[in-house]
């Protein structure tokens, strides 16, 4: 029987996968909309979801610190091992940096982030158009990088599953009852 990720790690992984995908699609879609009540609503939802993703990530990092993931299969070369660790480190780094850049951008653009319209997140930056525009570019650039690494992440998982036929993907999936 192969070693699986712990159930909380699986739940956090797939919950965040769904949330981040929704955030990415929403972020690209809402940006070009003409100003309307719907646009304001979507921006608010995007910001709330972004704060939620950031908090989920903190929970996830806390869980991971106490529960090491199952080891990589011995068949992986040293280079592949390095690429896997570097890729995951980059994903974690971006999952931290992207919501932070969004939060700072909101502050610089003069629209404070208020989580679910109730909990105000303090503004670290004063309103400043130039900094706001710069942070918008940073937010966009980090997301572009995130999507590229994410494609590598998904591609690698599928390659391991269907070509190498190892357990890299299945150990992140729910256990099958007969196992």
């Amino acid at each position: 029987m192969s070693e699986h990720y712990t159930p909380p790690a699986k739940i956090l992984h797939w919950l965040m996968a769904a949330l981040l995908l929704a955030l990415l699609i929403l972020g690209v879609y809402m940006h070009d909309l003409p100003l309307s009540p719907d646009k304001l609503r979507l921006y608010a939802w995007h910001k709330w979801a972004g704060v939620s993703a950031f908090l989920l990530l903190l929970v996830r990092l806390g869980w991971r610190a106490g529960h090491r993931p199952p080891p990589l299969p011995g068949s992986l070369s040293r280079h592949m091992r390095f690429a896997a660790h570097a890729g995951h480190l980059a994903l974690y780094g971006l999952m931290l940096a992207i919501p932070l850049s969004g939060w700072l951008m909101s502050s610089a653009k003069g629209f404070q982030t208020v989580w679910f319209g109730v909990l105000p997140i303090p503004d670290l930056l004063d309103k400043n158009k130039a900094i706001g525009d710069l942070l918008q570019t940073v937010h966009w650039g980090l997301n572009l990088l995130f999507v590229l690494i994410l494609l590598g992440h998904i591609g690698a998982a599928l390659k391991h599953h269907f070509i190498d036929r190892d357990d890299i993907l299945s150990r992140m999936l729910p256990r099958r009852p007969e196992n």
Partner: protein
Amino acid sequence: MTRRILALLATTFLPLHAHAVEYSQVQSAQSAIRFTYQQMGVAVDGHFQRFSSQLSFDPARPTAAKANFTIDLASIDTGAPEGDEAVAGKPWFHTQAFPTARFVSGPIKALGNHRYEISGQLTLKGKTQEIVIPTTFTPQGRDGVFDGQVTIRRADFAVGEGSWAKFDLVANDVLIKFRITASSK
């Protein structure tokens, strides 16, 4: 000869100045009209960049004071460029038909301790409402500084119609804050 004329002028006009200090020259660089509104629970600040005014205020005779303001609505800064564009449109200010907002002061009540209540008519988007603005006056050398704020309801002026009419996104209450610096002649 010149000196005698100057002396004569001085004796004629100086006492007048000593008795009545009328603040009437608005210093635009030290004056601002700002506003704050709530958007989905988030306070957003904005201001108007251009306004003209006729002001006359003598602290000794506050009831005779006058304060009229005309605000160029196209000079709005809502906090976001696309917001500035949107509020010019029909559902908001409809600046093509109503380019300015106007405040004309009526009775002014002195509450003592440099505090006043300025009543007046605010006309915005073709609708006029009576408003009362609590204001403080602070003399600063030759200048006097007026600080005041008043909450108006945008629905009273049909500002934000159609899909914006509900207050779940943009609140009805808009807090107007101003600081007007005026010097005496």
